[in-house]
């Protein structure tokens, strides 16, 4: 009997002590903040313009940011977030995808010199501006792949970055790190892109890369003035009013290509 009594009394006493401390010293809880934070994707990609998910969540709570700035958040979580914050769900911009606008892999592009140094694009551009012939081409040393929070970028063995559209969430981290500025963010609805970023003259381009856009205007003639722009020797797709995917066949340089490989869904719709 005595041991039971002792344990009970001890338990009650300690519980009382805890209760008292909590009563007098407890810190206010932050339920909404925790809930908002739990909805964040946690990739800390910085695509929202804030320093990581936590920072964005704090900005949301302070009312300084709007839901929808985060591209990596799933639609379901976004809806929850809007409900939580008590704001009407705004029309969120169309999902984006990043595209490496360069076709200059080792089979097509010329290297001007052997680069000896740190294997990273950011380092390579510091040495004579990078050893790849075309100064607008992808260096293929993988700064973007290392920075991608979603593992969507593959560095091909022939030294060019390839973004897998189904993994990319359009956070834009690769866009800001790329020293050659060859990665562009485009709406997912755009079916084709010009895989070349060099505004150089025809002769100079051909000297360095056999897959460069030569500004032949065939695509523009085939699709119309407003769907494809030609700027000097470089064609670019009008992302607001893009041409459809069949246009790729007219490009003689094969640098106008589709972004997404035909997905299962698209294949199904074709079958129907």
């Amino acid at each position: 009997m005595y041991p039971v009594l002792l344990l009970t009394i001890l338990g009650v006493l300690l519980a009382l002590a805890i209760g008292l401390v909590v009563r007098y010293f407890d810190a206010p809880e932050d339920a909404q903040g925790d809930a908002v934070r739990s909805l964040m994707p946690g990739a800390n990609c910085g695509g929202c313009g804030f320093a990581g998910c936590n920072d964005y969540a704090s900005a949301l709570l302070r009312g300084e940011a709007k839901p929808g700035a985060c591209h990596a958040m799933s639609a379901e979580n976004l809806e929850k977030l809007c409900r939580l914050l008590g704001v009407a769900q705004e029309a969120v911009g169309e999902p984006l995808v990043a595209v490496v606008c360069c076709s200059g892999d080792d089979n097509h592009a010329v290297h001007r010199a052997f680069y000896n140094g740190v294997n990273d694009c950011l380092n390579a551009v510091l040495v004579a501006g990078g050893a790849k012939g075309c100064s607008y081409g992808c260096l293929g040393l993988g700064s973007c792949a290392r920075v991608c929070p979603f593992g969507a970028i593959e560095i091909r063995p022939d030294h060019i970055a390839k973004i897998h559209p189904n993994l990319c969430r359009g956070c834009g981290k690769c866009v800001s790190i790329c020293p050659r500025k060859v990665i562009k963010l485009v709406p997912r609805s755009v079916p084709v892109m010009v895989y070349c970023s060099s505004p150089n003259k025809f002769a100079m381009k051909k000297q360095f890369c056999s897959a460069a856009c030569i500004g032949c205007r065939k695509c523009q003639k085939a699709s119309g003035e407003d769907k494809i722009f030609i700027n000097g020797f470089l064609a670019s797709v009008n992302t607001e009013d893009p041409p459809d995917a069949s246009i790729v066949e007219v490009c003689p340089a094969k640098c106008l290509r589709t972004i997404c490989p035909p997905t299962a869904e698209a294949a199904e719709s074709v079958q129907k």
Partner: protein
Amino acid sequence: MGEYFTLIIGAILVHNFVLSRILGICPFLGVSKKLSTALGMGGAVIFVMTLSGAATSLVNHLLLRGHGLEYLRTIVFILVIAALVQIVEVLLQRFSKPLYKALGIYLPLITTNCAVLGSAIICANDDYGIMKSTVFCGASGVGFALALLLFASVREKLELARVPKCLEGAAIALLTASILAMAFSGFAGLG
């Protein structure tokens, strides 16, 4: 004086709780990624251990021993320590938000930290007085903090190492801890 000196050296170096007695490994591995959190955790452990050492030996001497209830020791000690940690947690949350955040889930872990309970039981087993128990537990806490500090500084360096994929994370941490434990075994006989 000499007795206490031996006790303290013994608890810190020779029978270091983490590296020699292998107690309290969870927080040791969990909170040792950064030096700053390791320092905070070390401080918290020293505090909790000293406090619980005093409290449990008090309970041991006043409540249990006189009444032939030594067999209740483990459960009573757990009760006392759990309550103590709860109180510390609440106080920390109130008075030191950054430390509370840094410790995160590890503070409740101290509750079930075998190092805390272990030190209390060692004191009871070896029949230490209240003063001696408090000193012993405090020194054990210091030993824990020291191991944590050393380990954290090594792990900060490991962050930059190219550890093979299969050993990343806890594996390499345990390997490092084992080497550290081997090094500490050299102190055998010192205290």
